[in-house]
Every structure is written in C-alpha cells, then in structure tokens.
C-alpha cells in the first residue's frame, strides 16, 4: 500500500482507493482474490484488506452476482467498488450494468442514484491469450446512464496522481455508475511529473458536472503549428505520445495529442478545438476496428467541424482473436510504428 507520492499508475490507483476507503466507511470493495497478501490479480487492491478489513469483501467467481449486488448496495446508500479481474469478463456483467446499474436512476424517474464503480483491466501484450487480453469497453460506450472512464499517467497536480484522483472522484464525488477501464500495460508506468513533461506543453480541459473528468492535450513545446490531431486514451495514449515525440524529432512532423479520461458520455470539446487547428484527425484504440470509440469520435468531429475536418482515419486492433504467441499478438495490436506510419500517410 502506497503511503507517499505515487510512483506508478498502480500506486496512484491504489492510493485513490485507500483515500476513498479512509474518507468514507460506505466505500466497500468487492472482487475476486482481493485479500492480502495477494491483493487482487494485478495488485491494485494490495494492502487494502489489511488496512480496512471491514471494507473489503473477497468474493466467489461470480462477476454478474457481485456487480448486481453492487447495484443493490448503491441503491441503499453504500459506495461499492467492484474489481473485475480481467476486462474480458465484462461480458458477464453486461446485464447488470446495462439493465440494472445504468437504468435505476432513469427508470425510477430520478428518485434514486446508483453510484457504483466497476474497475477492470483491459488490454493485451502480456501473452494471456484470446480471453484474457481483449479491449472490450467499446461495448459499454453509449449506454445511457453509464460513465466510462480511463485513467492516464500524469500527476495532474494532485497528491495522489491523476489516475487515483479520477478513481477517487468516481467513487465519492459523483452519483452515476462508472465503468473504470484500466490497462494492464499501464500499471507499471511511471507517473509523468513536471520534469519529465518539460519537452511538452500540457493543457488540461475540464468540463463541468458529469463531464468534469479531464481531457489532456500534449504538443511539443515551441513546435510549429501542428498538422494533425491524435486522439487516444489510456495505454494507447502513451504509445501515441511516444509516436508524437518521434515524429517531431525524427521527421519534423508535428501533432497534437488529445487524451480524454472520460470516454462516455462523449465530451470532445478539446478534440474539436484541436482539429479546428490541424484539420486532420487520427484516433488510436486497442479495441477492434468496427463500431469502436474512434468511429464515434470521427463521426462527432465530422458533425462538429464539417469541412473543417479534411482527413480522418482510425487505427485499431485487427478484427479477430488476440493470439497468445507474442509475435502474433504484437501483429494484431496497434504499435508506435503503426501510429507513425499512419500519420505519415495522412500529412
């Protein structure tokens, strides 16, 4: 359990949970294998069952059941946080999220709220194979009543780091059900601090109310006007940031990168503003290509900017299973070079 400033995304998320549980006894963690010394499969929950034994429930392998129970808990005043061990298993909780958690407020005519947070790690590149490597959040984007959030590894000017703060706020400072999408590759990433960010201009756009999750904007400091806007979230945003850096320093192609931490409901004000400057938009996501996040971002940007959007492409995972063998898996998922090549095709 982290006591000092978080070094990694994992530390930051752990700290966010810790602070939320400390601040409010109504925060209850439910999930499989959460108890110390194990502390959850990816260790985000490590130390919490020791520090808050009354607030951590390790559960049977019953994703639907515990998510459904979280709905009932939230309706009766608790602040449940469910850990789904692998994002692939969100298929098991779909009815609970779509027909229950996300419905309660609307179908009971606004008389109730169901503030439950479902945390889960998506993503591949670990060699876990077809049912433990997917990026499935696109199926939950656009579900009325559901917020979908994805953290990014900046400190964000807050003591627990932006990922932990995003999680803390989802648990305690808002009343909607939230699917909180992490990425396995993100966990060990270092939190980007000011010194690391010295070569970038970092801007933070924050909406209000249910759109208050920040959208980060990156560009190379003192660079000429950008020719293209990259939009990506989570781990893909980290790859896009590296692509942006290499394009600038190796090829003098300048981009802006927009990193929303709220995927749904869609809030793309900062993306529109960037594309209004660059005219070109490339979205990058780890989910499969069809009907994905990028499709909606492109559609909305086209609606907002009309002829102001001159070129638009999407980069996504190949349509198919995520293979186990490292070379096959790598060929299936978008990589830094794919982003660089796609940008070069576009500008």
């Amino acid at each position, binding site marked *: 359990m982290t006591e000092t400033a978080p070094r990694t995304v994992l530390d930051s998320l752990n700290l966010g949970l810790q602070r939320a549980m400390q601040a409010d006894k109504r925060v*209850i963690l439910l999930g499989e294998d959460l108890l110390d010394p194990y502390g959850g499969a990816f260790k985000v929950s490590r130390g919490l069952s020791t520090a808050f034994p009354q607030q951590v*429930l390790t*559960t*049977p392998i*019953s994703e*639907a*059941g*515990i*998510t*459904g*129970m*979280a*709905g*009932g*808990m*939230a*309706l*009766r*005043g*608790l602040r*449940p946080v469910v850990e789904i061990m692998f994002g692939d298993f969100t298929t098991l909780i779909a*009815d*609970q999220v779509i*027909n*229950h958690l996300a*419905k309660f407020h*609307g*179908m*009971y*005519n606004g*008389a*109730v709220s169901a503030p439950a947070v479902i945390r889960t790690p998506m993503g591949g590149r670990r060699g876990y194979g077809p049912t433990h490597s997917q990026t499935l959040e696109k199926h939950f984007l656009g579900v009325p009543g559901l917020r979908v959030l994805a953290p990014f590894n900046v400190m964000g000017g807050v003591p627990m780091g932006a990922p932990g703060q995003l999680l803390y706020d989802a648990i305690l400072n808002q009343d909607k059900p939230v699917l909180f999408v992490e990425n396995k590759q993100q966990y060990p990433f270092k939190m980007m601090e000011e010194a690391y960010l010295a070569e970038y201009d970092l801007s933070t756009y924050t909406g209000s109310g249910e759109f208050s999750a920040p959208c980060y904007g990156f560009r190379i400091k003192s660079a000429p006007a950008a020719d293209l806007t990259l939009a990506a979230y989570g781990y893909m945003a980290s790859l896009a940031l590296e692509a942006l850096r290499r394009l600038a320093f190796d090829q003098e192609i300048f981009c802006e990168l927009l990193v929303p931490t709220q995927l749904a409901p869609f809030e793309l004000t900062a993306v529109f503003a960037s594309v209004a400057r660059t005219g070109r938009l490339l979205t990058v996501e780890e989910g499969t290509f069809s009907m994905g996040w990028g499709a909606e971002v492109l559609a909305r940007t086209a609606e907002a900017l009309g002829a102001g959007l001159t070129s638009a492409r999407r980069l996504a995972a190949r349509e198919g299973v995520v293979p186990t063998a490292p070379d096959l898996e790598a060929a299936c998922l978008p990589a830094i070079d794919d982003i660089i090549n796609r940008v070069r095709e576009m500008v």
Partner: protein
Amino acid sequence: MADNALLYRQLYQIRRFETVLIDQFKTGIFPGTTHTSLGQEANAVGVLAHLQGDDVVVSNHRCHGHYLAYGGDPQALFAELMGKPSGVCGGVGGSQHLHWRNFYSSGVQGGTVAMAAGMALAEKRAANGTIVVDFMGDGTLGEGIVYECLNMISLWRLPILLVLENNHIAQTTPASLAVAGSIRQRFEAFGIPTAELDSSDVLEVLPLAGELIWQVRAEGGPRALIISTARLGAHSKGDDTRTPGELALLWQARDPVAIQGARLTESARMELEDEVNTAVQRAFDAASEAVGGQR
C-alpha cells in the same frame, strides 16, 4: 389473531385493482402491456403483513400485488400504468419498474435477486434490524445469477427472506418443461433454511411467513419460503395457452379471494367489497383525470 376482514380487504383490493386494469385495457387508456397477480394475492398480503420500519421489498415483473400490499397508492399505480406524470415513477417505469419508499421492482428475471442481495448486504452493515424480502418465481430459477446470489446470500448470512412464488408456469411454459430436480433443494444446497407451503390461503401464508421473517430478524441470516400457488390470469393480458377447463379448476380450488371471503358473513363481505370498489374506482378516475402526456 388474524383480522379476517382486514386481510380480505387487502386481497380484494389487489383483485379489484387488477380486474379494473384488465377491463380498462380494452379502452386503450393503458399503453403497452402488464402482468397481473390474479391468484397470487395471498402471497403478497400474507408475507408483507410482517414488514417493519424500513424493511425493503424487491419484486419482479408481476409486482402490482406486492406494491399494493406494501401500502402503495392505487391511484399512483393506475397513473403509472397510464403513463402519467403523477404515476409512481412518472410514467417512466410502467407496470414492471416501480419504486416507492423501500419498494423496488424490475423486469429482468434474476437480476432482482442480485439487487435484493446487495440491499440485504447494505442493511446488514447498517445493523439497524432492517431486512429485505425478495419475490421471485419458478421461472426465475432458469437464470444463472440466482445461484451466484444464493451462494453469496448464504456465505455472508444476509438478512433476506427469499419468497419463491411457484405458480408452475413461466409465461406459457409449464414448470415441468423448465425446472429439473427439487426447488427446495436448490436453496438447501446453499445452506439456506427453507420452508414450503402448498396453499392459496392467506391464513396459511401469514403465520409461516411471520415465523421465517422473525427468524431472519433474530438470526440475521437468510430464509427461503416456497409457496406453491396458482396464476389465475394470463401471463400478461390475454396470452394464456391453458385450457378453459384447466383454468376453471384452478379458480375453483385456488382463488385466495374466495377462500378468505368465505370466512366473512355475506353482508360484511358485500359491504367491504362495495367500499373497495368505490375506492378503486375513485383511484382510477382520479388517475384518468390527472394531467397526462405533457411534461
């Protein structure tokens, strides 16, 4: 000592409400569809008579009887079914999705059991003696999430009474084609003490439910009550595939309103029915006259 007149009034109110509902559907005043609890009124009345304080009720698609026995306002329910802003949920929820005070219903089989289990967990933590009563049916047993929840309900000793109203038919499918093995053993396999009753008599439901709810309160753990009952109406409005002969036999043997009504004198019963008829009509009229549509 049970108050026969009071129990009859409650049973008859549900019956009258739903009879008016079915009759008036023909006029087009109610949009969509509905599921009535005709024949199952004794379960609602007999179980919910034992609620105290902030006790929570979770019900399903067949929830009007539970709502009314809980003390819900018939006018607000009529208005809800008419899609009026003055309805229980402003017309958004409709027949299956009601919430008033600590009463909640929803229309997806199985999910309500999880919802109820989560509520029981919340009430257990609050430690104020509040319990949850969850109604499900034999049809609900086909859903996998039920078994996930029975496991956790028992594992964590949640204060909940699971009431399984076995009306032996799921929409049109008889239980013989949908439920293998023993229903009782399903609960008992998870270590949930279970009682069974084959009756449509509120005077039999009442004491058994009372005993089980007392046990839930006293021990803080779960109990299950399986009530073999009869659905005397269609699944929704007119989609019954059972034969008239079959239904006639059920009406003859398993009508909870008739069973309890026989315990009153003819005049007492008529007087009470007149009162309820008037009240239900007044509720219907008021709901009809309430401002509609425009919000």
